[in-house]
């Protein structure tokens, strides 16, 4: 369902750890389905320092603005210009081509505070049940 190697936040961001204390981040499938058609991304420039669970950018759908929180602390290495130019990629392929920002982690142990895919699957299942009550 949600990729096994990724880690997840309660606000529906993911991080895919890479070697050398780096990682790609993005929004989960649940996030993109809740947001609807995504039309604009406001992402931090390379070199920006981000802090875990603090706002690092914004995602806009037609009628809503949501904060994107950093799943871990670190420095921005790259932003996904393709997604910036074509925001619907985040809807179409949230875990692949729709990645947002690549980070260099300053505190890799922060990954432990995140959910693994099983926990996140359960978390989302509960939310979906609540939503239909």
């Amino acid at each position, binding site marked *: 369902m949600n990729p096994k190697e990724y880690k997840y936040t309660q606000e529906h961001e993911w991080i895919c750890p890479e070697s050398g204390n780096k990682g790609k981040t993005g929004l989960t499938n649940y996030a993109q389905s809740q947001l609807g058609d995504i039309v*604009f991304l406001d992402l931090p420039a390379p070199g920006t320092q981000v802090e875990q669970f603090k706002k690092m950018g914004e995602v*806009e759908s*037609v*009628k*809503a*603005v949501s904060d994107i929180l950093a799943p871990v602390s670190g420095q921005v290495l790259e932003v996904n210009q393709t997604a910036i130019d074509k925001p619907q990629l985040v809807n179409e392929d949230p875990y692949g081509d729709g990645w947002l920002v690549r980070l260099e982690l300053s505190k890799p142990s922060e990954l432990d505070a995140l959910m693994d895919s099983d926990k996140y699957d359960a978390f989302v299942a509960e939310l979906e049940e609540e939503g239909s009550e």
Partner: protein
Amino acid sequence: MSSPYLPNTDTDRRAMLQDIGVSSAEELFQDVPEKFRHARFKLPPPLSELELKEELRQLSNRNANLDDYTCFLGAGSYRHFIPSIVEHITSRGEFYTAYTPYQAEVSQGTLQAVYEYQSLVCQLTGMEVSNAGMYDGSTAAAEAAIMACIIKKRNKVAVLTTVNPTYREVIDTYVKGRNLSLETVELNSSHLSSDCACLIVQQPNFFGCLEDMEAYAQKAHNIGALLIAIVDPISLGMFKPPGDYGADIAVADGQALGNPISFGGPALGIFACRKEYVRQMPGRIVGKTVDVEGKPGYVMTLVTREQYIRRERATSNICTSEALMALAAAVYLATLGKKGLKQVAELCYHKAHYAAEAIGKLKGYSIVFKQPFFKEFVVRCPIAPPQINQALFKERIIGGLDISHMIDNSMLLCVTEMNSKQEIDKLVKILGTYGED
């Protein structure tokens, strides 16, 4: 209880109260503490439409109106020709009793008209995008200043002294509101603080004169600031538009485009800017798209900028603006068209110059500024302007704005296409009687 605006009869109300399950309407106010529920109001007793129309007609007759009096007063509110078609369109109930077009499927009239308005403003100003309009020229300028500070991430706004003083005051109120600062820049000063987010200029300026806009654009851009130009929309019938001289944001008051003077309001804040800044532009914007059947249609767009989505993070709090005035402006510009607007501008220009030349020749009078001007100019008078204006008024003429607190014994005169040669000659004749000594 009967009123033309209360369609329900006592029978209707009784039936409804029964369905609600209460015996009287009073019970529906139970949440209001008893002691507050029956306030007394000292208001005049009601009158019928017939009686009030007569009373208001008489009240209106106590005002000297510009159909009966010749007007040479401008300074931000102008008497221009309004073709009759404009009001016939804005008086249609489908336009003026409609709400803001949130339900696009039943608001295509409003939305398409706004798209036309936005396009016409861009054509007129030479700018890339326009919003659907704001309150008036002064608040549009103030909001432009705030927008510049947000874009440039700077806290200071620079304004030329030749900008309309009331506009400067409004900009000051808004800027101080956000705890930003305002720097006043003298006309030929070379100094512009590098921490300014924008330079605000007016063309023609408050005194009616045309300034070197390219030089201001360069000055602003040299320090990485935006140039905000406040323009006279009628002047754009003949003069170079802000888009051509490097303005980043252009604002104007659209009252002159098909709207009555109306004692200063409602007016219309025209607001246009470079495409790259569209996400920071305040106000509504209408965009073209298609519906599920592929038919072209119009919808409010980029709404995440606005207060009802972004709330405290919105660039502006603006909600209701001046939509009907923008419709009037669109109809006006479409009606005057390419040739008509140029003609109106030229009529203003030549009549104003005819008046200025004649007044300049009068003993005791002088034209204060030597620069090129459009339809307004400053005249130094032999005696205090209020005295002259009192005398003119007796002859059913409304004279220029007394600006003696800025320039000794001077008034700001305005001549438009509405002033005939006879009216100008009469003005000159009367003015001439004061310079004789």
